[in-house]
């Protein structure tokens, strides 16, 4: 069953029609990549799933987005619950200007009714272990997160997210500021995480999409041109425009 289902999803920024009738379905425990040239609306689509677009003034959405059969676009949707369930990793790693420790327990502190001190240590350890940072950082927990390397920062952001216990990970070009080695590590991490989470990744890097994803969608000018198994899209695209893009004719 689909974890996220979009039905006739349209989105406007003021008068600009950014998403045009998107129908798609994202499966649980798989990595789905959304690819396409810059400005095609892929990040916008991702930001529909945790309603981050709400922060921008003049955004209007129509259609349905069902997450576990619940329409998240309805006006009575609890945004806190939604964002807890569908966490986001941003293009630029954005750890808070707090210590490593405080970054990770942030989620617990804002969501727990009552924060149990001893539970926090446990959360920090398990979250950091999940992103394979524990050994590197266990002695630097009180250091400012801003002093970490870019890759460590991005991993920390993922750890911070996992501590909230989401269902779905929305990744908006999570590797675009990282070097190839760091990228490989983050990709490996994604493969490990997909056992437990539904992952949607937006990327302009087609090799990355081919390497890491199970399903893929190609977007162009606000339309979802093609959606299917990654293998099919990369080896036998049905649409001429998809073929042109993945063979590097534009983009």
């Amino acid at each position, binding site marked *: 069953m689909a974890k996220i289902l979009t039905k006739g999803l349209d989105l406007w920024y003021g008068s600009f029609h950014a998403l045009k009738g998107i129908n798609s379905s994202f499966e649980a425990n798989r990595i789905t990549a959304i690819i396409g040239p810059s400005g095609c609306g892929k990040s916008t689509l991702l930001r529909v799933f945790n309603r981050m677009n709400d922060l921008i003034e003049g955004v209007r959405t129509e259609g349905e987005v069902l997450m576990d059969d619940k329409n998240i676009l309805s006006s009575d949707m609890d945004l*806190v619950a939604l964002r*807890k369930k569908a*966490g986001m990793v941003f293009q630029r790693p954005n750890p808070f*200007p*707090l210590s490593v420790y405080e970054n990770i327990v*942030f989620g617990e502190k804002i969501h727990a009714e009552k924060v149990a001190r001893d539970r926090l240590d446990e959360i920090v350890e398990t979250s950091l272990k999940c992103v394979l940072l524990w050994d590197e950082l266990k002695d630097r927990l009180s250091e400012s997160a801003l002093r970490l390397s870019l890759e460590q920062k991005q991993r920390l952001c993922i750890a*911070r997210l996992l501590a909230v216990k989401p269902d779905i990970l929305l990744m908006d070009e999570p590797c675009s500021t990282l070097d190839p080695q760091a990228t490989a590590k983050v990709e490996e991490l994604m493969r490990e995480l997909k056992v437990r989470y539904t992952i949607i990744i937006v990327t302009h890097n087609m090799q990355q999409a081919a390497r890491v994803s199970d399903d893929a969608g190609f977007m162009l000018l606000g339309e979802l041109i093609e959606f299917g198994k990654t293998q099919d899209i990369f080896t036998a695209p049905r649409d001429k425009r998809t073929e042109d893009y993945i063979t590097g004719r534009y983009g």
Partner: protein
Amino acid sequence: MKKIKELLIEKLILICGLASIFFVLLIFLFLLKEGLAVFKTVSSFNFLFGKSWYPISEPPALGILPLIMGSLLVTLGAAIISIPIGVGCAIYIAEIAPLKIKEILKAGIELLAAIPSVVLGFIGMVTLVPLVKTVFHLPTGLTALSGAIMLAFMAMPTIVSIAEDALYSVPKTYKEGALALGATHWQAIWRVMLPAASSGIVAAVMLGIGRVIGETMAVMMITGNAAVMPNSILVPVRTLTATIAAEMGEAVVGAEHYFALFAVGIVLFVISFAINVTADLFLHKRQ
């Protein structure tokens, strides 16, 4: 010819640049020269911690503790009032207010900063002072509290505009990150944006306090000017600044009283200097 002209202009600008430092140095030296002379007659300990200020009695009593306490009391009161309101106002402007209200508020704050202190003092004298008198059933409304309230209005524009600036320059990604983790708007402000802007906010507070401690005219008009040790915030006090302003005109040049007033100036100078340096440290820490 061109070379000489260049050289000349360069030197001229150099002189302009050095002039400000030169004048500050001169002022400071003059202050020291005149002020330190008082310590020939009174020890620095008795000067700073003496509890009575009767400069024209015979022999004069030159203890400035009541004046220091007066300044501290008024400043502390003003800080307690202006910091929460000022920082709250900054948060509202930076984060919550819709664009239109934001513009109006910012203009309002600037206008508040533009009111001359003597006008504020005058308004305080005819409105606030009687109010304090009736509310607290006091013999006079000319109290430290009245001064503190009035000075809070003076500190607020500084606090609001610098704190707002600090909050505004917090990267938007911090807020996005917090919201994406399911934080409410207030949680994002309280747990991420305020800590991120903390050094700028501290600097804002320090500069606001710096303005309060140096203020003279309004406090002289509404604090009652009694140079006695205050035992509550509801009694008249006299501040360091008001003392100099009120007494300098009648002090005999070269007399102990005259030197003592300069020494009060040194104390004031040291306090404001310390506050400004602290504020500066925090501002630079931010960058």
